[in-house]
């Protein structure tokens, strides 16, 4: 299929989806309070934007997101790489990892509040936690998967020491895998933003919670769309960077 046709079909899909939604909302089958019509969203956006609430919420969430994302990514890649490189360290931490891994970020909310209070730090902590695990496992697998022959090449040409081996062979070789972990973390991070703010930390999640308390469902939908757009933009930007960084791939 030609790219042009593909884009046209995708756009058609979105339009049909919105029209069907609008039709159901207007038909009165479902009470308007339960299902807001999409045409109510632009108006909701204007009111929220004029009062400055929308911008403030986006900025607040963005700051939680960026702090949590960078911290979680950095630590996740570091710990994942270390575990993949050193068998002894891997064995030492293996069961700690197994115990901690299945606990979802929202289960940490009580501790986040006790440790950080209802604060920006608590939200960033929860986001970092989610992002950490994704990057930990992605980096671990990526480093393990580096071609052993290339490592041998390093030894054959005097680049077998830890520093050259790590920076000239292992990390560049693991980069595609590490980057796909980063990308998955980028998405999961936005999902956690909402969960982390539901208990009252200023941001998109908190505003959604407030609006749903007032049954202002069109405002809830507005913030859902906002998150979708923010995710779309961050994923798009990341893909641009990734295709540059990995230009050596076919």
């Amino acid at each position, binding site marked *: 299929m030609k790219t042009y046709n593909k884009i046209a079909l995708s756009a058609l899909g979105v339009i049909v989806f919105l029209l069907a939604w609008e039709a159901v909302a207007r038909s009165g089958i479902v009470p308007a309070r339960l299902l807001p019509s999409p045409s109510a969203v632009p108006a909701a956006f204007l009111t929220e934007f004029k009062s400055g609430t929308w911008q403030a919420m986006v900025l607040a969430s963005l700051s939680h997101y960026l702090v949590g994302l960078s911290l979680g990514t950095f630590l996740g890649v570091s710990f994942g790489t270390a575990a993949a490189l050193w068998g002894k360290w891997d064995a030492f931490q293996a069961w700690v990892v197994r115990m901690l891994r299945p606990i979802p970020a929202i289960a940490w909310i009580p501790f986040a509040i006790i440790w950080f209070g209802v604060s920006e730090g608590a939200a960033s902590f929860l986001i970092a936690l989610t992002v950490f695990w994704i990057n930990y496992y992605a980096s671990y697998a990526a480093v393990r998967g580096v071609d052993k022959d290339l490592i041998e*090449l390093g*030894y*054959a*040409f005097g680049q077998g020491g830890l520093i050259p081996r790590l920076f*000239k*062979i292992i990390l560049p070789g693991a*980069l595609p895998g590490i980057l796909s972990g980063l990308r998955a973390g980028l998405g999961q991070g936005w999902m956690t933003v909402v969960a982390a703010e539901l208990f009252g930390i200023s941001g998109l999640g908190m505003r959604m919670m407030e609006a749903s308390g007032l049954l202002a469902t069109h405002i809830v939908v507005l913030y859902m769309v906002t998150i979708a757009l923010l995710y779309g933009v961050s994923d798009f930007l990341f893909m641009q960077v990734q295709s540059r960084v990995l230009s050596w*791939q076919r």
Partner: protein
Amino acid sequence: MAAVTLSKTAAASVIDLQDVSIGYGKDAPPVLVDVNLSVERGSFVAIVGPSGVGKSTLLRVVAGLHSARSGGVTIHQDQRPGHRPVGLVFQDSRLLPWRRVIRNVEFGLEGLPVSRDERRRRAEAALKLVRLDGYARRWPYELSGGQRQRIGIARAMAVDPDILLMDEPFGALDAITRHNLQDELRRIHQETGKTVLFVTHDLEEAVHLADRIIVLGGTPARVVRDVRNMAGRDGSVFRDQVEQLRSEIADNYSI
């Protein structure tokens, strides 16, 4: 376990193997025993033998990638600065896919006391040697199999090694490319006078290239023949030599 000894004393030979025995694992029987071999400076020595006989392992021992079980491996390293004792060429070209061609050729020079300019200059000279000087800015994936092998040779030559070690470097190439590269390698050997130790299972290739052929065979394997190759580049002599060698060593090919 015996590692490679680097000797700074001048000698007529580049490498000396004394009673070298090689095996995998602690208790497994040895693969290769009683290897005694001196490679003269400037010579082109081929090691032939059936697959599984330990040719490549022997090469890996000389390259320092595998330890001999017993015996001595000595490389007589020249005094000139900024070079490595060995340059290794693999059967799979083993280029780093994230480095452009020129940076792949520079790889072995990094870590040597060589300035950045000098490194680039030497890598460019090595590319010229393999006639791929127009390819410096390409990515490895843009190259053909034969070109990739040439870059592998350039990378090994760039470190100006005392000995060039080649592990079935043309084994994965199609016949025409293989012949071209064999001719290129002969030219490079003549132009540079580098000592070459070349592993192959292809007897024709060995006779075509080398001035000395070491045949490994038996279980455990040992050196069964050590032939000075007298074949001129004249076709009839070449054919006779191959046939004669083939019949002489046929017994040792039954593993």
